[in-house]
């Protein structure tokens, strides 16, 4: 199972692309995905925060991830 993750703002610049595809971590949870991404891209760990969105909603670390989910990394927002 693989996961597609959309990237925005500074996370897109850190990773160098707007979408990455990764093998699902074990367990396939938000927290494990964040751990894996921070391992591959240490600069993500230097951000003030980095949330994960699943299907347009903020997700908690224990939320399960599925191939069909719309997953995105959400660095600190700054609208307004």
């Amino acid at each position: 199972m693989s996961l597609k993750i959309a990237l925005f703002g500074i996370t897109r610049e850190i990773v160098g692309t707007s979408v990455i595809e990764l093998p699902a971590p074990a367990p396939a949870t938000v927290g494990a995905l964040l751990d894996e991404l921070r391992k591959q891209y240490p600069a993500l760990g230097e951000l003030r925060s980095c949330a994960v969105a699943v299907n347009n909603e903020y997700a908690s670390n224990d939320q399960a991830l599925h191939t069909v989910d719309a997953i995105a990394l959400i660095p600190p927002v700054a609208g307004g």
Partner: protein
Amino acid sequence: MTPHLSITDQPIDVAAALAAVQTETAGAVNSFIGTVRNQSGGRPVRRLHYESYDSMALTQLGHVVAQAYEKWPMLQEVAVVHRKGTLALGDVAVVVAVATPHRAESFAACQYIIDTLKQVVTIWKREEYEDGTEWVAAHP
């Protein structure tokens, strides 16, 4: 009472946003207009770039407005328009407009919506200076 929510790469029509919330049942229309400032923390800003995750931004904006309707049940109409793309100094970046029967609730609901938008809506701002650029709020 369906809120008028949008994210656009075109200049914001402030008068249209205000007109969208006007209704005979409301005696107060309150608005917040955010514009591009020429400096940030003392550093001159040349222009701004806003990036949006549109589908989530609109979902989260819908939640914010729903919360405002819960807090102020007398709230009549709401419009929120946020710009994305490249903005020049003085450009309008965001408009929040609300209509309520009386003025006190219009100030409170308008402030709640803009304050909460800034915390949860998935829009990012990159400031461009004379000597580089920076994603606002990205680092501690």
